[in-house]
């Protein structure tokens, strides 16, 4: 069975929000749209977003590190948001594991949002139905698009290539290899929701330099020749 998912590389995410804007642009004009924007140019803009980039600071100054953390629906393998939906509007697609909302059935009761520990679902203030990341279902299932374009909008937009997309059930996929070889992890594993999306941890590049290495053993400038020369011919005079 296929389980499509994102793998987000926190090591290279620079927090530019390109994924946020491209997600909003694609989805507000696509199948899931419109995604409301309220007071976009006023003091407190708000609206529906499928994907948000948050920022955390780890440690205490001056030993701090900034973590940019993109967050969207994780398309859980055991989605707790699905069984609680009274109408059946929330469902998990059997063919590719994407968790979706049928906007024609949703009554806007918000119960599913209570049942998602990640806060991945947002009620659209205009349409009054529940919305969340669709993994750009209208792109990734569109056979008319080229292989290269058949990816979620955020993945294509990321300038740092921090977002990988693929089938996490296929052990040879790019995402599975990344999870396996680079310590990919799930959010809030304590709830047993089995998120399909994974995160690749930050990795500090550290170079260990031994003090001895600071003095090169084969330093050409090191004075080794201790002979005192008095004008006689040396090897340098005959060989060139």
């Amino acid at each position, binding site marked *: 069975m296929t389980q499509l998912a994102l793998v987000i590389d926190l090591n290279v995410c620079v927090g530019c929000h390109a994924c*946020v804007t491209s997600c909003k642009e694609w989805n507000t004009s696509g199948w899931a749209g419109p995604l409301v924007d*309220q*007071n976009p140019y*006023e*003091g*407190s*803009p*708000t609206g*529906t*977003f499928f994907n*948000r*980039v*948050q*920022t*955390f*600071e*780890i*440690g205490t100054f001056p030993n701090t590190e*900034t*973590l940019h*953390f993109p*967050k969207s629906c994780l398309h859980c393998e055991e989605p707790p948001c699905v*069984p*609680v*939906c*009274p*109408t*059946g*509007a929330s469902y998990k697609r059997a063919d590719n594991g994407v968790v979706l909302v049928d906007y024609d*059935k*949703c*009554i*806007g*009761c*918000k*119960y599913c*949002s*209570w*049942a*998602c*520990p*990640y*806060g991945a*679902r*947002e*009620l659209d*203030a205009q*349409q*009054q*139905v529940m919305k969340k990341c669709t993994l750009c279902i209208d792109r990734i299932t569109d056979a008319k698009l080229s292989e290269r374009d058949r990816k979620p909008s955020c993945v294509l937009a990321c300038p740092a290539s921090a977002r990988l997309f693929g089938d996490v059930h296929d052990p040879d996929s790019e995402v599975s290899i990344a999870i396996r070889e680079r310590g990919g*992890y*799930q*959010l*809030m*594993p*304590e*709830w047993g929701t089995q998120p399909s999306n994974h*995160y690749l*941890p*930050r990795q500090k590049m550290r170079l260990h330099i031994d003090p001895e290495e600071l003095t090169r053993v084969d330093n050409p400038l090191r004075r080794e020749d201790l002979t005192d020369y008095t004008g006689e011919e040396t090897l340098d005079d005959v060989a060139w």
Partner: protein
Amino acid sequence: MHPAFSVIFLTTLIGAGQGLYLAMVTGQLYAIARFLPAQTDQFYAIGSLVALALLIAGLGASFFHLGRPERGWRAAAMWRTSWLSREVIILPLVMTLVFAYGVAHWFGWTQPLFQVGAALQVDLTLLLGVLGTVASLALFICTAMIYAAVRFIQEWHTPLTVSNFLFFGAASGFMLAAAYSAYIGNPLVTFYGTWAVILTLIALASRLAHLRRNVRLKYKSTVQTAIGVRHATVIQKAQGATGGSFNTREFFHGRSPVLVKQLRMIYIVLVFPLPVLLIGLSYLIGSSSLPITAFFIQFAGLLIERWSFFAEARHPQNLYYQSVA
């Protein structure tokens, strides 16, 4: 969690309605067993119509909770997995049975249909009363399980949520039955008042146990598990929106902790000791207005209690929405 008035009124109104209906059926059962003098059919009929009115008011309030109320009927679809769906099915069922019970009494359809054992004459009202009682209890469970079944909200995820809903509803319903009897000058006021006091005390025990449990709660999720970083100091600097979002509106009550604490003290006084004292006092001085006051005070307290129930609950998603700066 953000306390929504629609849900506060829904749960308290239908709780009182179900409780009043249970009180009517209990009264009838006691009368059949000759522990109480038999009442006129009109007494039960009007009582159950008041209960029906409360149920209808609660249902009306619930529609304000929905983004798309016109599609509300769809909510009956997933009863196999969703407690919300189960509630949506059982609520109209209870309403129908309460209505039928009232109508059967109103028109005096009390000819025995069959006999159980030597003495028990089963008529239509008794049959409907028993069915309605079972349905009412099921509705209490469904309503409470909507909250108790959300395992992420650890404050709610306990059987005490169910016992709270059950005993609060029953207590306010019996209190209303006492008020109703007092209003029409029926001697049953002592009977209902006594039951109301007993149920109120059980509700008190249940709610105090719930509060005590929640004080000691250990939260499963931390900001460390939320973002997967092992460090003691992780502080959120931005949540991806400056003007708030659905996540900040739905999952935070936005009031000061002091207010939450004060309201808790207020409802504990309004729901428990005050009505009990008023009922006791009404026995002593034979007042007919005190039971009515007791009901309204307790109901006001229950509205605050339900507000607190939401405000106390901390959703793990809040870990992602701690700071805007």
